[in-house]
């Protein structure tokens, strides 16, 4: 399967609470009317300026092994290196919101609209994740429809630059997928333009294959440990049930 998927801005609109963390706003705490008004405006600007599009391409485990090796700069031991080999199916993906939203953010900063600019940036970052969520759903539903996986299977994604997968992995990924077709280019430093773009691999299989301890050497440098939440969500375990963070 190789597919390009156009989405509507409304399909990738993030929930308010999802992007507030990035702005240091504690969900549930009272926010000023002014902050609320900026939030509303940022959401309007997001809807007007984002043009989400994505692509997915199935890849075999041996093919992905080559892609994952990339330029040979990954950490020696990584969770993904163990996980992808146990997958039922893999797909590489790219998604972007397009360049207009980044241009709007720049304009806002240049005109001293700092609060709105940073708010739009946070909304757009979260919106890019939502675009990949939509790709994941599309891919998973297709696999179920084709009878290739059951409803009990799980899907999680991993991207270069995280969890020991070196950023330079982008090069091989681009050579295989050609995200240029949807307007994403890769710079020498492995930055993608437009900035609000994500690439990576979707790993489909038994949910348990995604479980790992966040005790790799590079985990010490990680600020978010967001893998914990992602795995918890996949396994259907709430943070309240498991307050210690173990999976």
């Amino acid at each position, binding site marked *: 399967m190789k597919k390009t998927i156009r989405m509507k801005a409304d399909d990738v609109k993030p929930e308010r609470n999802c992007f507030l963390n990035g*702005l240091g706003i504690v969900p549930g705490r009272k926010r000023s009317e002014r902050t609320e008004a900026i939030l509303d405006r940022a959401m309007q600007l997001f809807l007007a300026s984002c043009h989400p599009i994505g692509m997915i391409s199935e890849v075999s485990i041996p093919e992905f092994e080559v892609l994952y090796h990339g330029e040979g700069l990954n950490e020696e031991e990584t969770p993904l290196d163990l996980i992808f080999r146990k997958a039922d199916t893999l797909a590489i993906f790219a998604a972007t919101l397009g360049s207009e939203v980044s241009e709007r953010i720049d304009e806002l900063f240049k005109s001293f609209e700092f*609060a709105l600019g940073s708010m739009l940036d946070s909304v757009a970052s979260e919106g890019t994740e939502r675009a990949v969520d939509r790709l994941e759903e599309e891919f998973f539903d297709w696999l179920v429809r084709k009878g290739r996986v059951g409803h009990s299977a799980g899907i999680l994604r991993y991207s270069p630059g995280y969890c020991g997968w070196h950023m330079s992995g982008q090069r091989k990924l681009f050579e295989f997928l050609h995200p240029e077709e949807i307007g994403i280019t890769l710079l020498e430093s*492995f*930055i993608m333009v437009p900035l609000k773009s994500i690439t990576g691999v979707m790993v489909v299989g038994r949910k348990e294959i995604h479980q790992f301890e966040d005790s790799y050497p590079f985990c010490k440098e990680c600020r978010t440990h967001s893998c914990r939440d992602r795995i918890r969500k996949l396994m259907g375990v709430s943070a309240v049930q498991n307050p210690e963070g173990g999976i």
Partner: protein
Amino acid sequence: MMDILADISQHLAQGDHERVSQLTKKALEQHTSPEEILNKALIEGMNVVGTRYRNHEIFLPDVLLAAKAMYAGMDVLRPLFLKGGIPTSGKVVLGTVQGDLHDIGKNLVGIMLKGAGFEVIDLGSNVAPEKFIGVAKQEDAGVIGMSALLTTTMPVMGRVVELLKREGLTHRIKTIIGGAPVSEKFAAEIGADAYGYDSAHAIECIKELMNEV
């Protein structure tokens, strides 16, 4: 006189840029000196905002609204400082390192630095090591602040520090680094003088670094 300065400070903290602009003009009409308005109303107001932000009493958007209000006040004062320039707490050269285009974090640091009374020379993104050093020397800046969002662009920070060492400038130009993949450990490894965990922390570090140059 103190009332109007406190009034400016208070409206600045509320992010009311229009009122700050009006009150700044009013204070000047009442013969308050521009220096006094700058230090006792605008910078003082931003200091209060910074403290409340660090104490998690307010959020980043509130700080940024206050910064816009401060800029509004500064716009009124700027022509009066033209001869000798606006008095500053020091000069900082800021930039996102070569190969990297992510500049939101760097922009936030710049905004908050200006709010704290520093002069900021923002070189933008994709800045070569030589440019950081060249501009810092030319402008006689006390601190170079570098941001990177990718592990692949972090090494450029080390090259800036290395160049400073080679030119024997580390005693008069200090370095601070920040960005998602950067850590205190990495700062120590490359010999940077400080690591800013977030924008508020970066401002505190830069204040300390300025005392060393």
